[in-house]
Each structure stands twice: as C-alpha cells, then as structure tokens.
C-alpha cells in the first residue's frame, strides 16, 4: 500500500495537471465557441479553474495566505460573469 505523503504528492500532481488541461480546453471553447453564451461560460469556467489552481498552490506550499486570493478571485469572477451576461441581455450594465 502506498504511504500517505506519497499519495498526497501524487494527488497534487494529478490535480495540477488536470486543472491545467481544463484551462487549455476552456481556452479552446473560448476561441471556437459559436455563441456569446458559450464564450461567457468558458470565461466563467476559466476563473473557477484559476481559483482551484490557487487553492492547490496553497496546499502545495502549506501556507494559508492564498485564502484571501481565492476569495477575491471568486468574487471578481461572479461579478464579471454577471456584468457580461447583463450587457448581452440589456445592452447596458447599470441602467
């Protein structure tokens, strides 16, 4: 049976690789994406994946300062998604 720290290191590598791959695939959808809705969705998913990468970096380095960074990224991602969608729906962000 694999020892616990080894398994954690392996899981960290797997998670880093899959999140980076997810970012790349989101970029593909961002370029292809036939409609504006798909592009907004790809941007939203990219923000969420970036949040996951920051959390993984926090686990990897064993520090807690990345918590504030991830909270700020989460808030900015939500606000920008809503602003983009609202601009597409109403032609204006604040009426």
């Amino acid at each position, binding site marked *: 049976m694999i020892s*616990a*720290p080894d*398994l*954690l290191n*392996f*899981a*960290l590598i*797997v*998670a880093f690789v*899959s*999140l980076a*791959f*997810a970012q790349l*695939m*989101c970029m*593909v*959808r961002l370029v292809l994406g*036939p*409609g*504006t*809705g*798909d592009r*907004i*969705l*790809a941007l*939203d*998913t990219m923000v*969420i*994946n970036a*949040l*996951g990468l920051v*959390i*993984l970096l*926090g*686990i990897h380095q*064993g520090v*807690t300062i990345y*918590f504030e960074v*991830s*909270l700020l990224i*989460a*808030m900015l991602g*939500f606000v920008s*998604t*809503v602003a983009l*969608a*609202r601009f*597409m*729906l109403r*032609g204006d962000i604040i009426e």
Partner: protein
Amino acid sequence: MTPEILGTYAAAIFLLIGAGFSLVGVLGLIKFNDAMSRLHAPTKVGTVGIGALLLASMTYSFVSGVPSFHEFLIMAFLFVTAPISANFIAKVNIHQSHCEPVPEPAGDETWSVLDISEEDRELEEDGEPR
C-alpha cells in the same frame, strides 16, 4: 493508523475527486453540441470540483497543525453564486436563440429575455445579430 495518516489519505482522496470533476466538466464543455447542454457540465466544476478541493485544503490544514475553517466562506460563496451565473448565461442563450425556442407565454405578453426595447427595433431589422 494515526489520525494524521488518515487525514492525509482523506485530503489526497478529496484532491482526486476534485480533479476528476474538473476534468469531466471541461470535457462536457468541449464535447457537447448544444449551448444548453454545454451549460450543464461546467456548473458541476464550480460546486463539486472546487468544493472537494476546498475540503482537501481544510483537511490538510488540520493535519499540518494549523486548523482553519475559513475555506467554508469560499465554498458558501461559490454554492450561492454558481446557480445565479448559470441562470444568467441561460438567459443569454435564450435571448440569442441558441437553444430550442421557449413556449409561448399566456396572453399577449412576451418573455422579458426576448423583449426588444423600442430604440433597438431598427438594429434588429438591419439584420444585426443580437
């Protein structure tokens, strides 16, 4: 099997779950061929995928001796906002007719996402895609 070893195993398993969900969600974003189907997959990344990564971070903080609960804040924020942004993107899809047409509403009203205001009618007649 001390609690430290069990906690490290749990953190690793949560990490693997989160990585798997992010991968599956993004494969859905790439592979599906309808705008509304594509919307369905990445919303799971935002809730289950990142939720599992945050659980792993929390478990690992307990193992490494500096226990912290404030990952719950990010989790709560994401769980509240993910459906809202998904709803907004679905509205954009309906507005741009990138999905099956919505059923006719009762009476002579129109859906607000399909309602084009007066000053934009000319743009629509020019064949400008909205």
